[in-house]
């Protein structure tokens, strides 16, 4: 892959725009097809752009995985309507269609492109994706534990069987909470389309029209953020978010319990044992500091007593505004 490839793509892309230009005549009905080669070109570009500072490579990766796809789709939307009389409802409908139609959940799509969304860390993941990632491991563990699950919960195997039962219950609960959370994100997505259309309507006034793909893209971002904030500040979201995180933690905790059990059987030190050792060390350090301070305090002459806070405050200059910076106003509270 060379820079020449990128230059070639530039030419190809320009030609595609030329085709779009020719097709965008009043006689043409219906949207023009999307511009070809965007994703491939961006992937090329990302590969070419890497190789400098690590921070630069990371930013390029984030651009490629998180941003370019959305911007490319918005370019396609803009190309469909460029130079035509289009009303907000049609533009919004086309955008919705591009994102999956009536069932579109742009928030879930966006979260799904995040680094970490394919991670096995439940806290970093889009919950449904994490569940899919973890499923093979959980299924394998379930198969291994099936013999225990088949036994009645008493006797020698009782504790083992209960651990597996708890794990499976946690798995099911996470699925349920994950769906509830996704439903709220879906609501935010639908609301985002409504707000997008409304904002487009506001931009229909003479002199307020959107003059670029970027402006159209930013308008969508505004609509989506507003819709998300509305949901995310609600008590419903609070409950769903808490239930989801709590379910993730429960499942993770139960996985850890099984891993600990297996580790202990192999004679490996467990996290619980390490935690216990760390707790003791911290407690010992605390005791040591108290003793040291007591010894040092006994050895030193009594320090000069500090003035009483109340007395010092009474002597302090009366409340007055801080010197006023250019635009920041200082507001004295005054005496209460």
């Amino acid at each position, binding site marked *: 892959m060379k820079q020449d490839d*990128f230059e070639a793509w*530039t030419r190809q892309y320009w030609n595609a*725009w030329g085709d779009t*230009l020719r097709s965008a*005549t*009043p006689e043409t009905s219906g949207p023009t097809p999307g511009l070809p080669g965007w994703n491939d070109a961006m992937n090329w570009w990302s590969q*070419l*752009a890497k190789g400098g*500072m690590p*921070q630069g490579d*990371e*930013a*390029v990766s984030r651009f490629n995985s998180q*941003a370019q796809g*959305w911007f490319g789709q918005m370019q396609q939307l*803009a190309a469909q*309507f*460029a*130079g*035509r*009389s*289009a009303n907000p409802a049609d533009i919004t409908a086309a955008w919705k269609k591009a994102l999956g139609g009536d069932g579109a959940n742009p928030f879930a799509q*966006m979260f799904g492109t995040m680094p*970490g969304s394919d991670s096995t860390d439940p*806290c970093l993941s889009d919950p449904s994706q994490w569940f899919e990632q973890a499923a093979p491991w959980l299924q394998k563990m379930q198969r291994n534990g099936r013999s225990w699950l088949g036994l009645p919960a008493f006797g020698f195997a009782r504790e083992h069987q209960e651990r597996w039962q708890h794990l499976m219950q946690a798995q099911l609960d996470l699925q349920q909470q994950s769906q509830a959370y996704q439903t709220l994100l879906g609501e935010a997505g639908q609301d985002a389309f409504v707000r997008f259309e409304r904002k487009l*309507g506001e931009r229909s006034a003479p002199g*307020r029209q*959107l*003059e*670029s*793909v*970027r402006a159209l*893209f930013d308008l969508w*971002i505004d609509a*989506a*953020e507003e819709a998300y904030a509305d949901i995310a*500040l609600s008590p419903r*979201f*609070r*409950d769903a*978010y*808490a239930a989801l995180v*709590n379910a993730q933690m*429960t499942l993770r905790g139960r996985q850890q319990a099984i891993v600990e059990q297996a580790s202990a059987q192999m004679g490996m030190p467990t*996290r619980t044992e*390490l*935690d216990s050792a*760390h707790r003791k060390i*911290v407690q010992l350090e605390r005791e040591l500091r108290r003793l040291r301070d007591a010894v040092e305090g006994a050895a030193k002459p009594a320090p000069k007593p*500090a003035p009483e*806070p*109340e007395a010092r*405050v009474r002597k*302090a200059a009366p409340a007055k505004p*801080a010197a006023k*910076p250019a*635009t920041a106003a*200082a507001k004295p*509270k005054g*005496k209460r």
Partner: protein
Amino acid sequence: MDGFGQGPLGFTPQSLAEESLRFQAKLRAGLETLHQVEDVDYGATAREEVWRDGTVALYRFRGDRAPTSKVPLLIVYALVNRPYMVDLQEDKSLVRGLLERGEDVYVIDWGYPDRSDRYLELEDYIQRYIGGAIDHLRREYRLDAINLLGICQGGAFSLCHAALNPHKVRNLITMVTPVDFHTSDNMLGNWTRGLDIDLFIDTLGNVPADVMNWCYLTLKPWRLFVQKYVGLVDVLDDRKALEDFLRMEKWIFDSPDQAGEAFRQFCKQFYQGNGFVKGGIDIGGRPVDLRNVAMPVLNIYAEQDHLVPPSSSKALAGLVGSEDYSEVSFKGGHIGIYVSSRAQREVPTAIHDWLAPRSR
């Protein structure tokens, strides 16, 4: 093109093609600049370590001239990000601005807690570390009390320390500091309130930095996951602007893990219990009552702060015991208050002008 101009879209295929070409030109330039950038390191000001307790260090910052203030100023940053945000680069440095105005500036660096730090508690951070740094400065300067500047969570810690040890704090400045955690516009507060924090910490131990970052980014997911990186293209042909962007990225993602027990206590007592407002904050067996914060207080908040809404910070006015309380409202966001050009002009001046007459 009949009807064109009557809808919300004012662009033509021609203008879109031109926009696309500009976009491509930026990408092409990025192939050069991304390989040229070098300086994305942080820190603009000379500093020296003057005190240490474990992984926690106290640094003194040295300006081009000797400080004129006789009272040192200790900056306490949050645990959730690295404190070099206050001295990010030469033209974005709160520390530098304060030094230029004659302040004698110290900053606590919390370091990176590891698994063995899981059982550190709020008492360790507020009394042992902040207290240790303050006691060191009191000894060195032969002063009863010093000036304290707490930022964000560091502001909440500073309020606690000042309430528990009012005789050691001469003047207190809080910047973008959460006080009322239950205001209706506090998204983080809303999310945290229903969590089973005990389960969370018992499961995770320390809270991984990536978890914290994920949580912060999802406060404004479209802006921070998507729009920001489209905006990156705008600066691909500007090496300096690109370096600034990458330096900020480095800061955002260079986050420490959070010590589990301290996190548990902070979430329960502050985010869930709203302890500054409702009471119930207990640091090492001692209750925190903001009425004991009787020293002069300057409270600086950011008008567009999505992490700590102004309503959360401004609640301080009705809670502290000080009769000398002032507020400064900054036109910007939670990060802009350190790094915007407006911040460089306004924030150090506001702090210094407020401190100077109170530090004589």
